[in-house]
């Protein structure tokens, strides 16, 4: 009789807490370029939630802030 294969997912998945919730950031300012730049790739694209670990609320605010900053030519749309 064949042995039962061990399950691939032996450990429960632990989700990382949202970095902005941890830091207690309530309002994401589109002028805070140091914060925004840590959430865009080298090519200027917004990092996905699976990369940033942000909660839905903060990721949504973050995307809005990045788009506002792009419109005001503070961060690039694409390229670097």
């Amino acid at each position, binding site marked *: 009789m064949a042995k039962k294969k061990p399950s691939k997912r032996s450990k429960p998945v632990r989700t990382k807490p949202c970095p902005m*919730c941890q830091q*207690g*950031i*309530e*309002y*994401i*300012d*589109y*002028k805070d370029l140091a914060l925004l730049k840590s959430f865009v790739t080298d090519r200027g694209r917004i990092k996905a939630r699976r990369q940033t670990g942000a909660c839905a*609320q903060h990721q949504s*605010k973050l995307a809005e802030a990045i788009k*506002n900053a*792009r*419109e*005001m*030519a*503070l*961060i*690039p*749309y694409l390229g670097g």
Partner: protein
Amino acid sequence: MRHYEMMVILSDLLEEEDATALFDRIKSILADQGGELVDESFWGKRKLTHEIHKRDHAWYGVLDFRATSEGVAELERQLKINDDVWRMKTVRPELRVHTA
């Protein structure tokens, strides 16, 4: 009256004194509309990350104020007419504050 924050991008074809004069004019329009200026900052000439009107530098200014929605609408309308105002963005910072 609500709290607003407005960023304006002014043409870099203006000399510094003309740009500050235009920024002062924006403040006087705001005062005419019954707005209360809370804070202001003129960032000076900055390099743009992408071209606006085929130029790669522009004057930046930020106004923090309290005004009525009609006052803001009128201010934006007047700024849109001015060709030296390239971009503007009005946000309501307190709206987005939420308790974590």
